[in-house]
């Protein structure tokens, strides 16, 4: 069985935010029909499905000032656990998805996510979404690993928009259960960390910490 996963290599990330812009273009922007694309009002970056954050100190898990907040596609997703209608669910290939047609908007998933990965846009968006899993106002939006480019049951062989946009190869996407994939190899070699592993959510978004911290990370 395939298990889609992503790795963000913080050694290679320059903070150019091309991934954020690509995510906004792919999943958040709407086409108005007259050649214009519109974004949410206010701080649009907050509604990107991968949100850059810069800490005043270093994050204790990734040992870096800058990292990204986005859906971790946990193996044990707390958001799916608390969802009363099953609107938040895990696909066969391990992607945590939101079924808009079942979501009642109780926001329990926003409360339950320990990573702050879900955001709710309550403004008005003119135009039509670019695909069926794009941001819809009033729903607790989240990263889908751009599954509209691939499938919810097959192997993780597509390329998410953020991965495609990264000029430095800092984002790697692949199948955790495929021993030959780079994602699987890096995880197997213990070169990656996750945010808050002690919570037992078993995230599938991994970070490669900056090189200077590697020995300490390995020992940890």
């Amino acid at each position, binding site marked *: 069985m395939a298990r889609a996963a992503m790795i963000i290599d913080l050694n290679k990330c320059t903070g150019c935010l091309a991934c954020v812009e690509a995510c906004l273009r792919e999943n958040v922007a709407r086409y108005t029909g007259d050649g214009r694309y519109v974004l*949410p*009002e*206010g*701080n649009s*970056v*907050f509604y990107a499905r991968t*949100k850059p*954050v*810069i*800490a005043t100190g270093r*994050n*204790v898990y990734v040992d870096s000032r800058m990292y990204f*907040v986005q859906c971790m596609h946990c193996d044990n997703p*707390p958001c799916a*656990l*608390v*969802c*009363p*209608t*099953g*609107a938040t669910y895990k696909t066969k290939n391990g992607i945590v998805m939101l079924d808009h*047609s*079942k*979501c*009642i*908007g*109780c*926001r*329990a998933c*926003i*409360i*339950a*996510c*320990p*990573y*702050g*990965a*879900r*955001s*709710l*846009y*309550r*403004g*008005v968006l003119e135009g039509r979404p670019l695909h069926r899993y794009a941001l819809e106002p*009033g*729903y*607790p939006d989240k990263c889908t690993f751009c599954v509209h480019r691939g499938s919810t049951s097959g192997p993780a062989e597509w390329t998410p928009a953020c991965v495609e946009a990264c000029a430095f190869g800092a984002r790697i996407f692949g199948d955790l259960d495929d021993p030959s994939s780079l994602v699987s190899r890096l995880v197997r070699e213990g070169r990656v960390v996750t*945010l*808050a592993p002690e*919570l*037992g*959510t078993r995230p599938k978004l991994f970070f490669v910490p900056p090189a200077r911290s590697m020995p300490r990370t390995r020992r940890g």
Partner: protein
Amino acid sequence: MKRSWWALLVIGIVWSVLMGYGIYAYQTIAEPSPLYALVPWGAMVTGYVFFAISSGGVFDALAIRLGLYCEEEAKRVARKTLVLALALLIPGIVLVFADLTHVEHSGWIYAGFNVTSRIAWNGILYIVYAAFLVAALVYAIRAGEERLTSTAGRALLIGGLLASLALEYNLGSVFGVNVAVPAWFAAPMGVLNIALAFLLGAAWSHIGLGEVASTVTGLTREEYRRCCVKGVSKELAGMAVATGFMVAWALVQMYSWGSAHPALETLVSGGLAAPFWVGFALAVPLAIILGLYAHYRASRTAILAGSILTIVGGFLLLHSIVAAGQTGRLAALQSYDLLASHALGPGGEAKALGELMTNPVELAAFIGGFGLWLLLYTLGLGVLAVEPGEKPRRLLVFR
């Protein structure tokens, strides 16, 4: 109908408009703000918990007095008490649906029932409790309150009691089951909710029976004083002690768990200290003092003051704890902290607190809920056969 009945009805209608405005404004919000994601549960969420446990508390006390102890005195006010519980439950259910951003999909709570979700269980428990409550009311009116201590009557009351206790516990546990929010704990929140339900139930019983029903129905103040003041005041004082103990337990747990410290600090000495301590003072020590005074002196003034202060304090206490759990994570969980500081700028926590405590739309919907209660309760007392021994003449339960 008495003139006072019409007056209360008109007040209820006018007051309910506030709820209608709040719900309409909330449902049509088109103002983008990161706060909807950072602190998503505002006064409407606390509001529906408040009304639901108030209803449960009113019902629980009656169910214990009649279903378990078969107290003859409680029969005289049984029908009115059941109408009171129903009138309190309806604003709670209205707020539940009004709070959803996609209420049109709410059928999926049942069609896509998720057994691990406390909110899904709430959907079941609301219906089960409401069914027992309505059945007990219809039974009391059709068969007479005397029959409430028969096997069938007791089964309805005890079934409703169990459903109500489960609902109260589950409503509290919604705040406590996830790993994300330091400061919300399943066990203390569930038991705290039950204690608070009995406390609020005592307060509402006095307001509903001792003030409203004794003004607009055949229940005289003297009759109410004889049957109920001592029991209600004892319940008020006793459950205030239990509530105080549970709040202390929750605070001790927050103190013992490092990541809950920000929430504890916000509650006891930070931005939520004022509503928390005022709520605690009103719902615990003052309720104990006034409840005991009313018990020993059979004082209507003391029980009235204690009831009003308990209702205000109970809400402040509950809402402070609900708010602290959400603002606490902004400081305790780094991702939230960073998102809040980037999205809201300096003073993000103050903005989040302001949103949770003073959002006018949500407050209007919640405060308007009192108007809907008054409207429904007054209407129920006027049109249903609620006097002891009264036989319904129209449509099963109506006068």
